[in-house]
């Protein structure tokens, strides 16, 4: 099974921790056991020591003990200075005095097994050769002379481990009986009394305990290790599954992202193509329209000449028919002009030509122009304007909008009504409203008004003679060239208000006249 690197790392850390815990527990237990074993050995040593001491004190208190003198127990040559070292009983038995050291030595030699732990007496002024101190003992005696009360040591002798204990032996009054000859006084350190406890049984016990500890710790360690490994394995499996699922999600995410990018790209391309096509269309329309204008100009021009009688007199019918030719031509021409304007604006090739002019003059000019059609219908055009406003924008385009609103108002108003042109000034903007008392427009139709070719002819009682592009063109001019907007409100049977709100001055640099 493949392992996740993170899981592997954690696993290794946990295993290391587990090993450390179990290992230190084992070591701690062993060290405790060792302390315990040593303390047992020490107790043993102290017990034996005390037993020797008791025996020694008993013998000393009696000033030694007389025993039968024989081969096994000869007279102690070191006591030769003592009178009555050897005495004869009235029955003739020979007795000799045994001092404590002599007694204990003989007891230990004769019954080593029963006696158990061997005691030892050493002195720097030994009288009997085996009582000579070794290096450790000599050192201990020196320390006793400096006031030390006890010395312990673990040592190895003849490949066997021992614990040895030594305490000082002080000269007391009763000791002087025998030892005064060596020059001791009361309170001097005579030497050391010690015991050596063989450590082998203790060590055997210790080894047993150690083995037991090892086994139990090994079992616990192995069990823990197994659990850790099993846990790690299942966690790893879980993690790998999780990662696989994440990868799947990631992959589908990426796929989705790619798809979105692809589609977006396709859409963008399509959009670009559409824009190009749209521009191409607008350019096509513009150039086609121009080609259409030239013959139209001829038609209108020559009809005009004939109508004026410049090329000879006309009868009534001829005049009427030529009048129809001329007005049809003019309608066609205005249609073509509107199309050119719209396509130029839509293609982004139209620009505003900003110039300074008086708004009042422009409005009066427009009024004058439409009076040709307004007068026969007995319509009055009123202009409501508090004071003149100086404009700095595209004069011809504003005029175009005004003319369009006015001719619409005239077209859709019955005889002898009033059309009002109202001008209001708001900071940097002007609001021009053309208010009529015409037939009005249905609420439902109103929203479509400013769209191209939205002529509401089916709902109108009057057959309109417009191009169907007028309001759309007005909106395009207002929004795209004059940086303003159009609006309207109307009520059927009451009349309509068409409005134009534009800045007095064109700000955007792209609309500004070159040079």
């Amino acid at each position, binding site marked *: 099974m493949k392992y996740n690197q993170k899981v592997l790392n954690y696993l290794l850390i946990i295993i290391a921790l587990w090993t450390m815990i179990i290992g230190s527990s084992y070591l701690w237990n062993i060290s405790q056991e060792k302390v315990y074993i040593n303390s047992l050995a020490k107790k043993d040593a102290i017990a034996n020591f005390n037993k020797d001491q008791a025996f020694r004190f008993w013998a000393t208190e009696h000033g030694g003990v007389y025993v039968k003198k024989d081969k096994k127990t000869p007279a102690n040559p070191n006591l030769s200075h003592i009178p009555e070292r050897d005495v004869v009983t009235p029955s003739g038995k020979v007795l000799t005095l045994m001092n404590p050291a002599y007694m204990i030595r003989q007891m230990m030699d004769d019954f080593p097994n029963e006696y158990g732990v061997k005691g030892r007496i050493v002195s720097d002024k030994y009288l009997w050769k085996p009582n000579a101190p070794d290096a450790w003992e000599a050192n201990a005696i020196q320390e006793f002379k400096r006031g030390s009360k006890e010395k312990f040591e673990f040592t190895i002798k003849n490949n066997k481990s021992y614990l040895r204990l030594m305490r000082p032996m002080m000269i007391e009054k009763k000791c002087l009986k025998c030892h005064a000859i060596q020059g001791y006084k009361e309170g001097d350190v005579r030497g050391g009394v010690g015991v050596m406890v063989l450590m082998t049984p203790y060590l055997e016990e210790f080894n047993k305990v150690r083995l037991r500890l090892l086994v139990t710790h090994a079992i616990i360690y192995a069990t823990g290790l197994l659990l850790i490994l099993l846990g790690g394995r299942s966690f790893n499996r879980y993690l790998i599954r999780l990662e696989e699922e994440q990868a799947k999600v990631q992959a589908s995410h990426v796929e989705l992202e790619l798809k979105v990018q692809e589609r977006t790209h396709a859409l963008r391309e399509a959009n670009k193509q559409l824009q190009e096509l749209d521009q191409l269309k607008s350019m096509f329309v*513009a150039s086609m*329209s*121009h080609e259409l*204008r*030239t*013959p*139209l*100009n*001829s038609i*209108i*021009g*020559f009809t*005009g*000449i004939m109508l*004026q009688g*410049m*090329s000879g007199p006309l009868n009534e019918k001829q005049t009427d028919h030529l009048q129809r030719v001329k007005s049809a031509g003019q309608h066609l*021409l205005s249609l073509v*002009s509107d199309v*050119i*304007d719209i396509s*130029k604006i839509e293609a982004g090739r139209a*620009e505003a*030509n900003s110039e300074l002019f008086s708004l009042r003059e422009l409005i009066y000019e427009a009024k004058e122009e439409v009076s040709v059609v307004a007068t026969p219908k007995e319509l009055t055009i009123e202009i409501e304007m508090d004071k003149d406003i100086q404009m700095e924008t595209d004069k*011809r385009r504003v005029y175009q909008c005004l003319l369009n609103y006015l001719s619409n108002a005239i077209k859709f108003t019955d005889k002898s009504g009033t059309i009002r042109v109202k001008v209001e000034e708001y900071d940097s903007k002007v609001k021009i409203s053309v208010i009529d008392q015409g037939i009005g427009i249905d609420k439902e139709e109103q929203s479509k008004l400013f769209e191209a070719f939205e002529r509401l002819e089916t709902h109108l009682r009057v057959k309109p003679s417009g191009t169907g592009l007028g309001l759309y063109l007005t909106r395009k001019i207002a929004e795209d060239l004059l940086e303003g907007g159009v609006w309207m409100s109307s009520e059927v049977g009451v009349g309509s208000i068409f409005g134009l709100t534009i800045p007095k001055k064109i700000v955007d640099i792209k609309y500004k*006249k070159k*040079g």
Partner: protein
Amino acid sequence: MARVLIVEDNDNNMELISFILETSGEETLQAMNGLSGVEKALSEQPDYIILDIQLPDIDGFEVLKRIRAAKEGKDIPIIAMTSYAMSGDKEKMLNAGCNGYIEKPIDPERVIAQIRDVLEKASKQ
């Protein structure tokens, strides 16, 4: 009576404008393209010129520039005929040294008056 040079490539327009001018008593000279327009302007020294902007060889701006560049042509009044749809051209022509303009389509009833206006202004300068 004045001599007018009309530079116009469209036959119908040429007939229309020359008919109107002749009817009103002017003498007309005709050039059907830009180069011959420049040549006739300089050689014939007309009283004024009516100049169409869209021409087949060199356009009206170029014609204007060449006439104005010559010593013989710099004082001749020139009236441009501009198309309504090419509104930007009007300003360009005036800036380039044109004395006035007539917007197409020409209105037979008004065109003579428009021309008089321009010529009057030009003579005052």
